[in-house]
């Protein structure tokens, strides 16, 4: 029955313990709406046919609503609405109150990617592994603007706000891969800020976790590129890049933005929009600054302005040197991302 309703209403599968609760109320509300809506539509049509001008007496019947009917107009819908409100609020409180034994996961939203970190384990970008049948508490925060963690199959959504943690919990009931979307508008690539929740059987999850602890997946480290590791020319390049506004479109931490990231760019084989590919060497980097539309990397809009005449030869060299210095290393697993503050004094 529920599955049929789900199919009719285009709902995704119910993959969390919250989903059937939400769906049940959903069906109740939609069912009532359709019954009453059909009633109203049919009544309107019936009136239209029955009381069409010419059929009914032209003289207005003296008629006004009796008070009890006025009260019913207000009272009956109100009773329904409040019932739904109460049922929904019960589930809402349930969904926002994590059980004590929940597994903590720290979720960081960032333009335009999701990062996940376990208290004891490595971080992941774009894929969240969770065990089935275990409550998982998410502590969400954002590095820049507001994002929203949304897994349709779990019927679960919570905003990730910069500068604070919000929390929500869920329990996946079936192994599988579930789509994770950003539901709060967050800029250019809002619609591509997608990730995946991979629910594993508890045993499979444990072995995955053990494997990860032994051999952490690579994560771009924010603190990469400290002053000490760079030569003077590269440092100058960093200054030039800041001054010329390169970072409006290019990142140095591996995140794709309006333009390709500079992290690991030097020496990389880049596919071009024209279908060819090019090796990002000194020549290509210099050409890109002077005539950026000549060879555009696939997947990026041809929006880069030309810096011909705006950069001196020395500055170009410094920039190239700086990009060269941005090579990924295999960093330590990120430190545990605990909220770094205690309860507020009240």
């Amino acid at each position, binding site marked *: 029955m529920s599955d049929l309703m789900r199919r009719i209403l285009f709902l995704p599968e119910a993959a969390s313990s919250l989903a059937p609760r939400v769906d049940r109320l959903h069906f109740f509300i939609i069912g009532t709406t359709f019954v009453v809506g059909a009633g109203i539509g049919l009544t309107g049509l019936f009136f239209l046919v029955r009381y069409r001008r010419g059929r009914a007496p032209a003289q207005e019947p003296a008629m006004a609503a009796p008070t009890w009917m006025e009260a019913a107009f207000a009272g009956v819908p109100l009773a329904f609405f409040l019932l739904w409100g109460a049922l929904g609020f019960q589930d809402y409180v349930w969904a926002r109150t994590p059980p004590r034994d929940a597994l903590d996961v720290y979720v960081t939203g960032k*333009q335009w990617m999701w990062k996940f970190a376990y208290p004891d384990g490595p971080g992941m970008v774009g894929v969240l592994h969770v065990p089935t049948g275990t409550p998982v508490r998410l502590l969400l925060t954002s590095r*820049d603007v507001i994002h929203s963690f949304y897994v349709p199959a779990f019927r679960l959504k919570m905003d990730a706000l910069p500068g*604070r943690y919000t929390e929500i919990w869920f329990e996946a009931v079936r192994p599988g891969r579930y789509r994770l979307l950003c539901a709060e508008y967050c800029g250019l690539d809002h619609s591509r800020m997608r990730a995946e929740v991979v629910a594993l059987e508890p045993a499979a999850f444990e072995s995955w976790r053990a494997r990860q602890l032994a051999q952490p997946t690579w994560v771009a480290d924010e603190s990469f590129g400290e002053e000490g590791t760079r030569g003077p020319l590269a440092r100058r390049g960093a200054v030039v890049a800041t001054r010329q506004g390169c*970072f409006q479109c290019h990142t140095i931490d591996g995140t794709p933005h309006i333009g390709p990231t500079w992290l690991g760019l030097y020496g990389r084989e880049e596919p071009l929009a024209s279908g060819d590919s090019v090796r990002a060497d000194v020549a290509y980097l210099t050409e890109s600054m002077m005539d950026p539309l000549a060879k555009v990397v696939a997947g990026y809009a041809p929006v880069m302005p030309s810096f011909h005449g705006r950069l001196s030869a020395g500055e170009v060299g410094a920039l190239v040197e700086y990009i060269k210095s941005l090579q990924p290393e295999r960093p330590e697993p990120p430190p545990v991302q605990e909220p770094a503050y205690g*309860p507020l004094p009240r």
Partner: protein
Amino acid sequence: MRGGVQVLAVGAVLLALATLSFGLSKLHLGAWAVPVALGIALCKAVLIAFFFMHLAERPGGPRLVIGTAGVFVGILVGLVLAEAAARAWPTLPPGPFPVSRLPGTERSGPPRAAPPWLPLP
């Protein structure tokens, strides 16, 4: 001339109330300081509205309007405060907290220095 006397009398009360506010602030009433100060301010506002802003002469529309406005101010402040006060730890912001900007818009936040037209010592 009766109106003039009334204005002066109300004015005297207003000045007295202002002095009272100031005096009470020296006593450090703790948790009561804000409600008491706002209460006195409200008294002053009512006096001004009724006697200086001619509300006493104009029942009906104007009283309704300003009363409604007061109610809505109460709703706005009250509901926002009620919601924020009920937020569970850790959702209240703990204070200045580093937030990374859009790449490249670091400069969109103005510098921690005075703008050119406001010379610092």
